[in-house]
């Protein structure tokens, strides 16, 4: 059982039990509302928080769920409990439909996704309004179902349902966060392209997240229909729903399952207090202000802040709540509690902590004894390029490149600036598709494969400007690559394996640090560790030595040697020819998009054509 699971169960049971303790129904209603919003915010957070695909369409699920229940029970006399699975199914299908359209649009940016999802509730609302059999503009009333006696009266029954749905949502979020899916979504959130290249089937996971979110949202909507008793288009498809959900999740924090819960609790209780004091009008203003200010100032939300200074927050709560309670000049218990919560939140967010500047810890020097390059016989051809070309508009980055790469080689890919080296790497890893020509890896034509499939065929790469997953530790960056590598393992199993790869690049001492704290050289080493973590057959290093001082360069060279000695074929794009002289078994020189020379390093470097390409036409050789 994971750490958080037991407290979670305990809270859930406690809430359920609360229904039978005879507390005033006012509190049950309030808690029921909190639970509704917890369920909505949490289900929204699965796709939009974890994966970063902001949806403005939460109302679509609430609406479909609510109307399913309303129409089936109100107009066709179907038992309430039967409407739940039907609503869930419909919403799941709706979500999959949205995903199928939105995620296939390759050039879809986050903003367009947000707007597309905004359009969906509008359409559904219009549909409901026209269609007599659904609503016809009149609204539909929801008859109270027959409640089994042991579940208490109708009030208690509604409350229990709300808690059950919220519990389900939070439970699902909790499980997902700690599962493979959670790792995938986090990777997608940080850098979807990199995740894809590492082997994460991004489309599949996004569809899973959107579908589960839809189902949970729909269930919440069904129960909501029961609560409001009379369903109208405005009440369930309105723009207020996504607004609330977004503010709650942004306030609470989107990376963790607790975030939306915190946000929901805070916002609902605040709203309740405002309403009870007749300050309804300020409702929307406060929500809007919270959203605007938060996004600009503390985009990570409350959870992260509370986690780093829990005592401060607790102190804030105790002090404010206590003072109000003792003084007893204003309000009642609930007011004091809410005030205390606000104080805790404010303290956590506003009190500035001294930002720790990344300390550039020197990279631990790799064991200096040079690893003997095994004079291994060259293996089979594993990568074949035939007539490969890539054009960008009028610019011919690559033209007619034909190349074979054999197992065990360490190829230096060189050439003047603009000769097409990085483009070739991008083609081999699947980031771009060639304009013409064929590329085969292990006999398979990769030009039709998705990047994550190319990763599984055995191709790995690093980026010139390192792109680590910023929300994960160094170890988890590497572990994620292992989790989604050719032989799938769980995150837990992957972590010790990750440590081994970190040792290869001598980053072991930084395993628990975050990428933001690493200097450039360390981030490049992390790139390498992540790339080799999935046991690739071929590793493409794109200018892994850029911007390094001589000591760091030597270190990196030793690391590359180590990697090569484990049997991985390496293609290294580089400018420092002196380095490649020592390292490479073969040099391929590109010039203006074509292969100029290809062969043994010393021979290639003294080839007059090559020298001319670098130094210019009348170079004295």
């Amino acid at each position, binding site marked *: 059982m994971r750490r958080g699971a037991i407290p979670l169960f305990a809270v859930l049971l406690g809430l359920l039990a609360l229904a039978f303790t005879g507390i005033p129904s006012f509190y049950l209603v309030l808690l029921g509302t909190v639970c509704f919003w917890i369920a909505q915010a949490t289900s929204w957070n699965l796709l939009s928080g974890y994966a970063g695909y902001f949806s403005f369409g939460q109302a679509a699920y609430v609406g479909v769920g609510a109307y399913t229940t309303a129409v089936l029970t109100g107009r066709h006399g179907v038992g309430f409990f039967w409407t739940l699975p039907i609503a869930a199914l419909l919403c799941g299908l709706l979500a999959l439909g949205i995903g199928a359209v939105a995620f296939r649009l390759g050039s879809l940016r986050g903003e367009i996704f947000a707007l597309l999802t905004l359009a969906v509730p509008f359409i559904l609302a219009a549909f409901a309004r026209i269609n007599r059999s659904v609503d016809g503009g009149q609204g539909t009333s929801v008859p109270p179902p027959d409640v089994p006696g042991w579940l208490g009266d109708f009030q208690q029954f509604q409350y229990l349902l709300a808690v059950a749905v919220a519990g389900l949502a939070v439970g699902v979020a909790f499980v997902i966060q700690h599962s493979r899916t959670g790792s995938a979504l986090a990777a997608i959130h940080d850098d979807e392209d990199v995740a894809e290249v590492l082997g994460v089937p991004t489309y599949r996971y996004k569809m899973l997240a959107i579908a589960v979110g839809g189902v949970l949202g729909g269930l919440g909507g069904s129960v909501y229909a029961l609560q409001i008793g009379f369903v109208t288009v405005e009440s369930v498809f309105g723009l207020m729903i996504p607004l609330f959900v977004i503010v709650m999740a942004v306030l609470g924090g989107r990376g963790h399952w607790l975030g939306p819960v915190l946000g929901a609790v805070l916002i609902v209780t605040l709203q309740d207090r405002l309403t009870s004091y007749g300050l309804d009008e300020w409702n929307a203003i406060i929500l809007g202000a919270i959203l605007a200010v938060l996004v600009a100032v503390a985009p990570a939300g409350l959870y992260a802040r509370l986690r780093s200074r829990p005592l401060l927050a607790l102190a804030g709560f105790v002090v404010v709540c206590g003072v109000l309670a003792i003084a007893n000049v204003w309000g009642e218990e609930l007011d004091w509690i809410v005030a205390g919560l606000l104080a805790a939140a404010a303290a956590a967010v506003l009190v500035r902590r001294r930002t720790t500047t990344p300390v550039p810890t020197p990279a631990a020097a790799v064991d200096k004894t040079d690893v003997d390059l095994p004079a291994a016989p060259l293996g089979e051809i594993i990568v074949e390029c035939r007539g490969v070309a890539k054009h960008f508009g*009028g610019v011919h980055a690559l033209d007619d490149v034909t190349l074979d790469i054999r197992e065990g080689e360490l190829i230096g890919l060189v050439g003047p600036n603009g000769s097409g080296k990085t483009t070739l790497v991008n083609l081999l890893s699947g980031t771009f598709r060639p304009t013409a020509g064929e590329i085969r890896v292990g006999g398979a034509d990769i030009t039709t494969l998705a990047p994550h499939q190319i990763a599984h065929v055995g191709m790995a790469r690093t980026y010139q400007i390192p792109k680590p997953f910023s929300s994960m530790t160094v170890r988890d960056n590497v572990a994620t690559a292992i989790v989604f590598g050719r032989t799938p393992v769980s995150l837990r199993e992957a972590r010790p394996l990750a440590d081994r790869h970190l040792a290869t690049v001598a980053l072991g001492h930084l395993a628990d640090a975050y990428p933001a704290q690493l200097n450039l050289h360390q981030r490049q080493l992390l790139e390498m560790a992540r790339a080799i973590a999935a046991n690739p057959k071929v590793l493409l290093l794109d200018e892994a030595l850029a911007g390094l001082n001589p000591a760091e360069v030597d270190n990196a060279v030793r690391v590359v040697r180590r990697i090569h000695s484990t049997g991985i074929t390496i293609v290294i794009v580089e400018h420092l020819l002196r380095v490649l002289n020592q390292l490479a078994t073969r040099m391929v020189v590109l010039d203006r998009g074509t292969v100029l020379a290809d062969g043994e390093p010393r021979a290639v470097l003294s080839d007059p054509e090559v020298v001319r390409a*670098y130094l210019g036409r009348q170079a004295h050789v």
Partner: protein
Amino acid sequence: MSDTLLEVEELDVRYGDAQALWGVSLTVAQGETVCVVGPNGAGKSTLVNALAGVHRASGGRIRVNGQDTTALPGHRVCAHGVAVVPEGRRIFPRMTVTDNLMLGAYRKGARPSYRETITTVHEMFPRLAERATQLAGNLSGGEQQMLAIGRALMARPTLLLLDEPSLGLAPVRVDEVYDAVQRIAASGVSVVVVEQDVERALAVAARAYLLGEGRVVSSGPAAELRDSPAVRRSVLGL
């Protein structure tokens, strides 16, 4: 010296926590052509960006015609007669060739005479006149380079900065580019060419600076550096 157009003194430039240039000093006289060569990663583009005001310097001084431009916001530097032909051309792809040129003449000092300047540019690069209404993004690499140079000329500069103009171009195109550079230099404009193609750069410049790992490694008349084995080794990274 009153005929020094550009004076760079102990220039430091940082990118985040990495320092790219360390105490770089150089001068360019009125009407002189100077080249800066060196291997990749030596900081050549960083130098150009700092001179053009695209990137802030973190230490040192840049003086153009005696005026200190070091701390000026980017858009004010060109008023002092500095125009840049960026690395990789960086023309505006979704604007026509003519629009790209016209944007070059945006600064107050260049606007009034834009008609005259554009005629000159068309004479120098007839292909730009032919392709006047085409979208810049659809031009070939060589044509885009011409456009980038033409755009810079529209600003009627006294100092022209060229960042790796031979990048990714076929030799015959590079010939055209350098012919143009020579004609521009002949008209009295001071030129700074930053290049990887050492031979070309030295052929067109009077003086040269060799940059290595963010510092000036050596400098002198172009003829001297042409025969220097140190230059060859440095550029080849050997």
